[in-house]
């Protein structure tokens, strides 16, 4: 099965083609991209085109399109999902949504993988995976709230715990002081890699395009007038 996957949940734009022979052609952005202003509209389709070209595949050769559904930057998620749905619709490929936090966790090399995406405004999107799968499903919280949750689960200072993602870079000091180790600053594990997204998609269910929407995990910032 030929799978195209991409993720736009953070400021970094990542894409990958996982060809049916198991060979992967990936555009994995550098960690620095996480701190740059997001330009997904400019980067996404060129990255997709590069992956396809290197894999010697066209859109018509794709069996599935995997897209990171967040949580993460709202505008980025919409660019990724609108693109994925339209590509799937026009190419006939299946659409397979994958949690960006799950893809991020898949890149963390530790038994207890704490995936943290910067939710802005002092918050984090978080999920914890262990060997058996999801242990703490995606949530949005301030760092203190997350630490409290980890403490309640007896995970603070637990052996094998490691955090990664742009959220862990932002709150490194608070996290480390509380007993949550964070992957090295330059580690590639801070980026949501689309290679992991493609691999996860192999086991994901195909979903009707209109049902694929971002996991915002937060309501819009607006108050009714009356």
């Amino acid at each position: 099965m030929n799978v195209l996957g991409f993720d736009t949940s953070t400021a970094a734009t990542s894409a990958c083609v996982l060809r049916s022979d198991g060979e992967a052609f990936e555009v994995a952005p550098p960690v620095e991209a996480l701190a740059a202003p997001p330009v997904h509209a400019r980067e996404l389709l060129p990255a997709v085109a590069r992956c396809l070209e290197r894999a010697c595949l066209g859109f018509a050769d794709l069996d599935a399109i995997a897209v990171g559904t967040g949580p993460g930057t709202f505008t980025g998620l919409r660019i990724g999902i609108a693109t994925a749905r339209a590509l799937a619709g026009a190419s006939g490929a299946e659409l397979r949504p994958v949690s960006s936090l799950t893809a991020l966790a898949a890149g963390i090399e530790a038994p207890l993988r704490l995936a943290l995406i910067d939710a802005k405004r002092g918050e984090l999107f978080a999920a914890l995976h262990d060997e058996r799968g999801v242990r703490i499903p995606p949530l949005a919280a301030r760092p203190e709230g997350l630490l409290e949750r980890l403490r309640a689960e007896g995970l603070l200072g637990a052996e094998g715990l490691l955090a990664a993602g742009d959220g862990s870079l932002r709150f490194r000091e608070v996290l480390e002081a509380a007993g949550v180790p964070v992957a090295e600053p330059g580690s590639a594990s801070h980026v949501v890699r689309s290679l992991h997204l493609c691999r996860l998609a192999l086991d994901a269910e195909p979903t009707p395009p209109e049902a694929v929407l971002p996991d915002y995990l937060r309501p819009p910032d607006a108050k009714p007038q009356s």
Partner: protein
Amino acid sequence: MILGIETSCDDTCAAVVTRAGEIRSNVVASQGLLHERYGGVVPEIASRRHLELIDAVIADALERAGASLDDVREVAVTRGPGLIGALLVGLSAAKALAAARGLPLTPVDHLHGHVVASTLGPDPIEPPYLCLVASGGHTFIARVDDLRAHRRLGGTLDDAAGEAFDKGARILGLGYPGGPAIDRLARAGDPEAFPFPRAAPGELDFSFSGVKTALLYAVRDLGEREAERRKADLAASYQSAIVEALVARTRTAVEREGIERLAIGGGVAANSLLRERIAQAAGELGLRLWVPDFSLCTDNAAMIAGAARFGEPIAHPGYLALDAAARLEAAA
């Protein structure tokens, strides 16, 4: 056939238009009610809704046109101006559709779409002509000598006309959107009851903040009960001040430019007083007037696909890195 996509504000739109300017379908999913309780468009809510609706709206436009993606030869999309998050939903979908099929893509200036809306259908306007565009987001007068571009002769310095209607309706407690509510109420009122100012900032420019303030003061001076009793007069006088300003400026532009064809567009073109007065002015000045169907005045994708006929399509894959723009350079 050209598939047009437009998501610059709070309407999710797709349309199919032929190269000859025949509208095969023009689908608009309006979010108006969704934003009503916020008293205006909330960008994040609009963007979320666009993403929910976009695929269905495109599919609907193709189906109503009796077409499939295989019949589409070109994709046209609004690149700006507008709400950036909203624009990006339509632009992303348009680019991806075009890329997956190797089709050319034409980015369109939303305002140019309004200006050339009267070129669609069986009786297309031809340049040179002037166009008054008045909506909730923009109010300006443009000159068109060549359908590829328009030249802005003047425009609002503060609120757009539709925005002025919305704000006036809020002051009068009429809800959102304000234009239709004021239009309806004004029919029972006296347009000369209150002498609201008709600001004249530049020869061809508009300003609507003064009339809005005047309405606010009038309501305050009357007191709650009296203002309620004279609501129709207030609405009629307020509407008249806005419409007279639009018509007066358009007259000046026509006379100055010496042009014999005039079009109007934008959602405010649905206002019954504006239609009446602009037709009257056109008659007096001996102009031919184009008032497109309401569905072509409010935001729609037919005007975007229509405008793409005069634009420059970008061949695949030249548009892959194309970005949306909340503001575009003024068309020259």
